[in-house]
């Protein structure tokens, strides 16, 4: 089976599953009386619709090869950073530093993946942006809450650009016996982590009793966490054949990135609550913003990248 065949089978399978989900969602909606509102069913249908968009965008990007994937995730980073900075309080003195984030560091970070310069890719934001952005901010000559503002800008850049850029960076890894199949690593990561979000939601709705931390995220329950993470770990293990892992390695990697993904959502919820927000944005109507969708990817992608790079790249 060629890598292209594998991808065709994968996406064919996902689209078929989505079609079934849409059918069920449509039937549930139809069974309700006309005009009768059901938050759960509507929410379910909104989630299925978001999945169509997500998988459709991914398929389109894959069709464009490495450049397509880099462009897709650069756009995701742009939108996420936009939402993060929009919700974060900065001052006039930060304007120039923020321009540097959007117009220099974001494009450069993705450009470094395109030219495969790993050395600079891995330190551009943690070292260079970390040092240069506060310098730029001091030139704004405003010391009010300076450390806090510098931290917010750096955090936004780390979460939205640095972390997320590790997804397309998976394409630069040279794994023996896996040449030409790196796109499948992205499918493994995205499918495992995003399905974890879905299964947590489903398990939480069906069996959720014990709230994990109502002050951070009122909808997250212990039952949802355990059931969701275990189910999507099984999904990850079942996908071992598209990865360089054997089944138990795939399960362990999936468990790790699911846990990280869960806490990614948790950490970003804490920031949202602090800012008095329910969602990061309104990109998909009634369904939150980009950052609501990719918070789990952001926390899991760099660790996934390093696991693969440390143990599978000689």
């Amino acid at each position, binding site marked *: 089976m060629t890598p292209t065949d594998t991808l065709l089978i994968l996406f064919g399978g996902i689209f078929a599953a989505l079609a079934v989900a849409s059918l069920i969602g449509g039937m549930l909606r139809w069974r309700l009386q006309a005009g009768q509102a059901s938050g759960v069913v509507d929410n379910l249908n909104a989630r299925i619709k978001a999945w169509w968009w997500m998988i459709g965008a991914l398929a389109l990007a894959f069709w464009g090869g490495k450049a397509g994937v880099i462009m897709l995730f650069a756009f995701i980073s742009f939108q996420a950073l936009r939402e993060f900075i929009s919700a974060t*309080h900065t001052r*006039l003195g930060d304007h120039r530093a*923020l321009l540097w984030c959007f117009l220099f560091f974001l494009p450069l970070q993705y450009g470094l993946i395109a030219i495969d310069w790993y050395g600079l890719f891995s330190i551009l934001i943690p070292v260079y942006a970390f040092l240069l952005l506060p310098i730029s901010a001091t030139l704004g000559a405003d010391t009010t809450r300076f450390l806090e503002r510098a931290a917010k800008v750096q955090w936004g850049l780390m979460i939205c650009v640095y972390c997320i850029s590790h997804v397309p960076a998976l394409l630069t890894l040279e794994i023996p016996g896996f040449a030409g199949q790196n796109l499948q690593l992205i499918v493994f990561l995205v499918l495992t982590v995003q399905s974890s979000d879905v299964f947590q939601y489903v398990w939480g709705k069906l069996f959720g009793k014990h709230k994990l931390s109502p002050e951070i995220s009122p909808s997250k329950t212990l039952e949802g966490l355990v059931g969701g993470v275990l189910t999507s770990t099984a999904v990850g293990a079942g996908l071992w054949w598209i990865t360089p892992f054997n089944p138990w390695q795939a399960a362990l990697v999936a468990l790790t990135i699911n846990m990280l993904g869960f806490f990614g959502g948790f950490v970003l919820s804490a920031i949202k609550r602090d800012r008095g927000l329910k969602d990061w944005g309104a990109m998909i109507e009634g369904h939150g913003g980009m950052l609501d969708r990719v918070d789990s990817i952001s926390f899991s992608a760099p660790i996934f990248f390093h696991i693969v790079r440390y143990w599978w790249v000689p």
Partner: protein
Amino acid sequence: MIEKILAAVICHFATLLTGVRARWLGSLPDGRVRVYYANHRSHGDFALIWATLPKRIRERTRPVAGADYWLKGRLRTYLINRVLRGVLVDRQAGHTDQADKPTGDPIAAMSAALAAGESLILFPEGTRNLGDGLLPFKSGLFHLARTNPAVELIPVWIENLGRAMPKGSLIPLPLLCTLTFGPALTLQTSEDKAAFLARARQALLDLAPPAD
């Protein structure tokens, strides 16, 4: 015709750049004659309010603008008079050093527009605020409310545009802007100027996101 196209272009461009969304809390967009009053931090503020109003309301809504700024240069004069259809007022009433200055009392000019069935957009701070929060209000809003007691005043908090395009910066930041429209206010009988302005200012501040 060309003015209508330009107005539509301005609205679409503002929406594209800022991803602006409107939240109506306690009031709804409708055709009633109203005074929308908002915080003012950027030249784009007016365009953003315009862009979030439905087209039929937008066409009946005019900004109140400072003549001293807008009548400098032919482009600005054309924009404010023909495209934005501004109600020009003299911010330094009493100083008569401008040849092209609008005549008469600002409140009379605004009231005439209201009487003609058109809504107004007003920035009661009187100037662009370069800091955070809200400057003290000028008394224009009070006089307008007293002269036109039937007209609803709608507070509009504009979030983020001042950060996206602050004064003196050439390149705008691609931040997402939110406009929050609050419940309508009217002048109460026996309410004096200071009390009314304080209440109107607080109603606007109540729409702002929490400061940290």
